[in-house]
């Protein structure tokens, strides 16, 4: 199993899941600063030019964060990375889809790449603010789902927590966005996990 990642990108969620599972994997850095994701070697693997990209041992490629997370959970049932039952799976995907498609892609993406939304540089601060609004609303919506629980589905870490982790990490360490107290506590809880510490070290990030 090979994970193509970029440090401090959303691929962190999959990186954490691989470390949590604890089976051998290879993490291959894609150098975004040098636009490696647009070069033929990477495009041949993933024409979407995005990370996370998972290469399975048979050479086949899987993309889209929630799909990769779901796959890793289903193929490692002993790790209990999905809550039980039909509803548990659906609720996990509901959370991951909201985290990736709304909080990340509508929120943080506006903050990181405002020029992909507005073509006049003078308008970029407005785009950044709009992005911050999506993120803030996203956290307000996610906080009561977590509530006072240790993890999103209770006492066990699941794939949805890995999704929430990268959003919280960005808020705390990249964008300085205040979060509801329960999310700060969730982030602290995740930062204490050996798998997360290993990933942060491997990606060269602040632990």
């Amino acid at each position: 199993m090979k994970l193509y990642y970029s440090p401090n990108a959303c691929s962190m969620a999959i990186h954490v899941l691989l470390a949590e599972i604890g089976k051998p994997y290879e993490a291959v850095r894609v150098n975004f600063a040098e636009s490696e994701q647009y070069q033929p070697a990477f495009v041949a693997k993933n024409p979407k030019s995005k990370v996370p990209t998972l290469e399975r041992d048979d050479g086949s490629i899987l993309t889209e964060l929630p799909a990769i997370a779901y796959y890793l959970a289903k193929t490692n049932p002993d790790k209990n990375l999905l809550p039980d039952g039909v509803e548990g799976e659906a609720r996990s995907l509901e959370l991951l889809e909201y985290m990736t498609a709304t909080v990340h892609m509508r929120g943080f993406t506006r903050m990181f790449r405002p020029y992909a939304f507005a073509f006049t540089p003078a308008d970029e601060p407005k785009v950044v603010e709009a992005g911050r609004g999506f993120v803030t609303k996203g956290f307000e919506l996610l906080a009561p789902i977590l509530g006072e629980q240790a993890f999103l589905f209770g006492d066990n870490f699941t794939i949805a927590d890995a999704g929430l982790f990268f959003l919280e990490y960005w808020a705390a360490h990249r964008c300085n966005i205040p979060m509801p107290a329960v999310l700060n506590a969730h982030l602290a809880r995740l930062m204490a996990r050996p798998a997360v510490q290993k990933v942060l070290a491997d990606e060269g990030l602040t632990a």
Partner: protein
Amino acid sequence: MKLYYASGACSLGIHVLLNEVGADYELVKLDMRAGDLQKPEYLAVNPKGKVPAMMLDDGTILTEWPALATYIAATHPQAHLISSDPVIAARTLEAVMYINGTVHLAGFSRVMRPAVFSPNPEEKDAVRMQGKKIFGDGLALVSATLGDQDYLMGDFSVADAALFYVTFWNNAVAKVEAPANINAHYDRMMARPAVQRAMVTEGLA
């Protein structure tokens, strides 16, 4: 089960899936133009202010297209809308999430609601063009997955309902030149009774 939908919105794909499995369901119609999605009555149901949303039989609300599709598939296993093989299931979700997250939200949303992307009214057309490019490139990528199969995963799956709603939008609104196999997929979908019934119910046919 109760589906909250707006006529011709991406909820159309979920409506199709409910028909495909022969689910026992009720419909609650919302009028997007009248601002129903942002009204307090609806925000009390779904604070995201979006469709589709589904009220499950226990009264809880489930949102997000891939989650609804997965739920419908898992509660109606006889319809085989998602494979029990985890690799194929992951591929199905991969296709669904790309269609929702990129083709729809990064592409079509720019075409429909450019002001949400650029605050500059003079950039409306440029945002629309950018949206059409993302939408068209997305359909081309999905076309490669489809290949010469009838359906995206070979057998009919939830991913086909996702492709259906974006190709419906393409024919109705975006009008980008779609690959021949994507257009053939649309025709194949339109021939399915479950699709025809959803189109009639939503006032689209």
